[in-house]
């Protein structure tokens, strides 16, 4: 199942995404959470903390600036550039990893 969480800035989109991701994970589903926002803070709402969220963003920026090679596949990307959030959710900040435009696709 693929879900997209959409809304105006400040509408509570990220909190909603985080609660949904962890609830699904608690019920035995394996969940990948992708932070596609140009102001990525899904990590904070998922509960990985400021420092880890910053680390993910820094890795993403290194990718954007060509200092770091892209991962060859999606699971590799998660292994190398993701982090484990509570309840087994795997989080990655993906803005601009696959596309220079802000946003996901």
């Amino acid at each position, binding site marked *: *199942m*693929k*879900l*997209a*969480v*959409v*809304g*105006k*800035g*400040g*509408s*509570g*989109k*990220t*909190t*909603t*995404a*985080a*609660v*949904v*991701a*962890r*609830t*699904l994970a608690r*019920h*035995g*589903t*394996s*969940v*990948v*959470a*992708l*932070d*596609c*926002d*140009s*102001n990525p803070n*899904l990590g*904070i*709402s*998922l*509960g990985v*903390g*400021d420092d880890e969220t910053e680390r993910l963003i820094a890795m993403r920026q290194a990718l954007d600036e060509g200092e770091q090679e892209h991962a060859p596949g*999606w*699971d590799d990307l*998660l292994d190398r550039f993701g982090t484990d959030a*509570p309840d087994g959710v*795997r989080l990655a900040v*993906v*803005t601009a990893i*696959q*596309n220079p*435009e*802000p*946003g*996901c*696709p």
Partner: protein
Amino acid sequence: MLSSVNFTHDTVIADLEAGLGTLTRLGNAQVDVVLLVVEATTKSLEVAARGADLAREKSLGRLIVIANRVRDEVDADAVRKAFPDDEVIAVPHDPAIVEADRHGVAALDAAPDAPAVRAISAMARNLLVMAGHNGSGAASV
């Protein structure tokens, strides 16, 4: 991108950029569920109405309108009225969420029983029913 993601996980949830930019660029049927988060304000409802149109035009699966930070029935009704043909879930205004944000922690950890957290969790569990999840980790993708 969402069209090409192919993880070995059951579920992928993407927190898209604020506004409708990503939704505009999504191809047809690239996701199964769109959670459209909206507040009962004119601006938010306008953005959400365009988002709902895009989701329908692009056949993006099940559309769930989340009426967020609802303070009273007037708020809830404003959202229901704007989306008369859609599934609308009301999530109450909840100081516990504001407090969790202030401290940079997850609402689910800081206030698991807060009304807003419970409302969102209940909606998420309902999604599992839709996905035919049987509790063994074998949800359909």
